[in-house]
């Protein structure tokens, strides 16, 4: 903890000054919301579920909030909406508030009091690539491919394309998205270089030294773009992997659960200014979202079919019931007919999924550094500092405590707030077996064979 000392006082005092109001109010009766009419944005993905459920189940209204929920065209439009105030809050990629706060892309202070889910993504390749990959995959006794499928099986295919002079294009949803980092992680673990960013040289394509060229496609357009042959595969959230199976245009090869078991996924983002101006509203909307997440996981996913029905409405995700149900109800269909149990494919509440852990934010920062989005070395303390600016467990705690007080949730639903320091224990379940300890980001970066290490610069 020595490295942490000099920073601790600064970070703590910053935290106290901002959260002073919040904690005081938590002790007293939670006040009425300062702003009653809110507008939230989302992207058509199943993990927006907590927002839809909080609306449909009346949790927002219970807090005196009248929320309009609006689908956005892509992640950039969504982020700009929150920054310029058109939206009060949104379903965001975990990397978005972090990148915005540190000024990668649009600079703005975005915070998150609520982490929306764990897992929920997959990597899909087109039928043509699958055909070439399949002989390289070890088989189980019943003849089906052995999981998890590693990128080692894809490597010869990528090399063949490279030798033929054809670019091997793949899609992900946003430069700072989970999907970008997961796809990169999976490719790099199999020896395929996904390319570096060099923002200080004006290169934000992320294709320097790349074997596989990654580019941005909005989630709902992924299947159509792959069908058109523009990309050979993609990493995206549900239902767009299952959609490929239903449409017979591609095969999901791996889920992010297999790349990193119980990885943090979306967050709910609001501006720091919003949280300061409307503290009660912020706690109240967090309360509603916590209740929704709890409902989604209650009684061993018993409410999921109802949730799928709501999500399949055209104003939410809008895909067919069967497509959404495939992954939301605890299974995942890989190759057509190869449906396997993945009970934790979407986790909304279990394993403290909604608590905004600093270590989750730091993992994203390590990947930004690994791929050059952060072009220079940063001390470990810097990582913690950014994480504490963006992730706000203090607001979460205030919301959770007031829910417990109102008997809407139990103490056991949440982490032990008195002892929680915001860092998960070192995590071991990565596809390449590398252990992640959020307290030592630089040490972690140095463990990868592909990627920038301490001292490296493009």
């Amino acid at each position: 903890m020595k490295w942490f000392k000099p920073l601790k006082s600064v970070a703590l005092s910053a935290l106290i000054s901002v959260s002073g109001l919040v904690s005081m109010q938590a002790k007293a009766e939670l006040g009425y919301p300062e702003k009653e009419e809110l507008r939230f944005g989302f992207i058509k993905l199943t993990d927006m579920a907590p927002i839809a459920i909080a609306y449909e189940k009346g949790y927002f209204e219970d807090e005196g909030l009248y929320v309009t929920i609006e689908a956005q065209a892509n992640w950039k439009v969504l982020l700009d909406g929150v920054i310029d105030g058109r939206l009060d809050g949104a379903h965001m990629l975990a990397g978005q508030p972090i990148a915005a706060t540190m000024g990668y892309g649009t600079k703005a202070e975005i915070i998150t009091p609520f982490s929306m889910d764990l897992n929920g993504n997959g990597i899909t390749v087109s039928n043509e690539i699958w055909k070439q990959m399949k002989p390289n995959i070890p088989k189980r006794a019943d003849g089906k491919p052995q999981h998890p499928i590693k990128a080692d099986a894809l490597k010869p295919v990528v090399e063949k394309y490279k030798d033929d002079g054809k670019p091997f294009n793949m899609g992900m949803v946003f430069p700072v998205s989970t999907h970008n980092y997961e796809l990169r992680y999976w490719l790099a673990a199999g020896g395929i270089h996904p390319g570096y960013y060099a923002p200080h040289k004006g290169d934000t394509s992320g294709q320097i030294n790349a074997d596989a060229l990654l580019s941005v496609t909005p989630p709902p357009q992924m299947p159509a773009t792959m069908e058109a042959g523009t990309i050979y595969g993609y990493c995206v959230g549900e239902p767009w992997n299952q959609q490929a199976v239903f449409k017979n245009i591609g095969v999901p090869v791996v889920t992010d659960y297999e790349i990193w078991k119980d990885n943090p996924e979306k967050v709910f983002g609001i501006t720091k200014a919003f949280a300061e101006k409307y503290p009660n509203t912020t706690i109240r909307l967090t309360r509603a979202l916590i209740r929704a997440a709890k409902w989604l996981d209650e009684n061993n996913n018993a409410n999921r079919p109802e949730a799928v029905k709501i999500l399949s409405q055209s104003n939410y995700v809008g895909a067919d019931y069967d497509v959404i149900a495939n992954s939301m109800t605890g299974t995942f269909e890989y190759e057509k007919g190869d449906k396997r149990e993945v009970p934790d494919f979407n986790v909304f509440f279990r394993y403290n999924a909604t608590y905004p852990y600093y270590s989750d934010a730091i993992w994203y920062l390590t990947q930004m550094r690994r791929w050059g989005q952060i072009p220079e070395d940063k001390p470990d303390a810097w990582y913690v500092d950014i994480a504490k600016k963006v992730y706000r467990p203090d607001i979460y705690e205030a919301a959770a405590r007031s829910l417990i007080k109102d008997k809407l949730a139990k103490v056991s639903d949440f982490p032990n707030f008195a002892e929680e320091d915001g860092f998960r224990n070192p995590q071991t379940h990565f596809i390449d077996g590398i252990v992640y300890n959020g307290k030592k980001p630089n040490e972690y970066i140095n463990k990868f064979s592909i990627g920038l290490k301490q001292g490296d610069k493009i």
Partner: protein
Amino acid sequence: MQARTELSAQGCLGERTNMTTETALANNNINKPIISESLKTTITKTFKTLLIPFAGILVFLMIWAGAASKIDTSLGKFPGPSAVWEQMGSLYEEHSAERVKEQAFYERQEKRIEARLAKDPDYVPKIRAYTGKETFPDQIFTSLITVLSGFVLAAVIAIPLGIAIGLNKTLNAAVNPVIQIFKPVSPLAWLPLVTMVVSAVYISPDPLVAKSFLNSMITVTLCCLWPMVINTSVGVSSIEKDLVNVSRVLRLPALKHVQKIVLPASIPMIFTGMRLSLGVAWMVLIAAEMLAQNPGLGKFVWDEFQNGSSNSLARIMVAVIVIGFIGFLLDRTMLQLQRFVSWDKAGTAS
């Protein structure tokens, strides 16, 4: 004098119509047994005005149904007429269901306000608008309001500007290059600029209209502006010399001159410009809504495309038909208006 011109113009047109009918009848009469003349006219008329278009639509539906069943997309078969009809019904049902939910929303809100007032008497209650989704009819309504307000705004700017340009040769020479350059620009190219300017300039804590509405409306205005300016100025500059001379002889003041001579004389051209621009504006609005995700029919189409459900294509087809139908109605309305106000009846043949 003006009245006389109008009369004679009408007379002329009347004669022409009679003549054509007579010729047609004469042609029909050749080699055919003579039945009652009037009955025959009625039959021919009904045949031409009702049956032929009906047959045309029928053939189109058949070709559509036939072709649709042969096109397989990754979202299932291309929707035929029956699938589209079905979705039309389901969209209407969704609309009705949403209205019921809206009712319940307001009832819940009232109760909540009462409960709060009991605890917190200082609270100034405000009824919050329904937060549910916009149904298909809502989207139609939004698009219509947007196109009409953008159109009216354009008319308010373009007609006075066009008159000024038409009256003044120097001004015309000065403004013309600018108009000529901006005229061929698709308003969609302006859209990003409009969006940024609106969000920078239009800041209000309790806005009267949404920014998205303003963006779409200004795009429509930009689209309508040029054809209206050009047509108005051409109409104004080509007023008959006689009329201008009369005004000179009577020494009409400038405003009176515009009011009594210029406006009445150039109204046909002004309306031609308006009708032209409304048609284009409707097309552009849909595209702008798709691009900027502003509420309206364009957003409906895009959302359905993104949903990629098995009903999506049929729903998009419903929207396509509705867009076409509304475009047609707008055009007809403008045509009627044009007919009503035009004295020369030129350019109003269909």
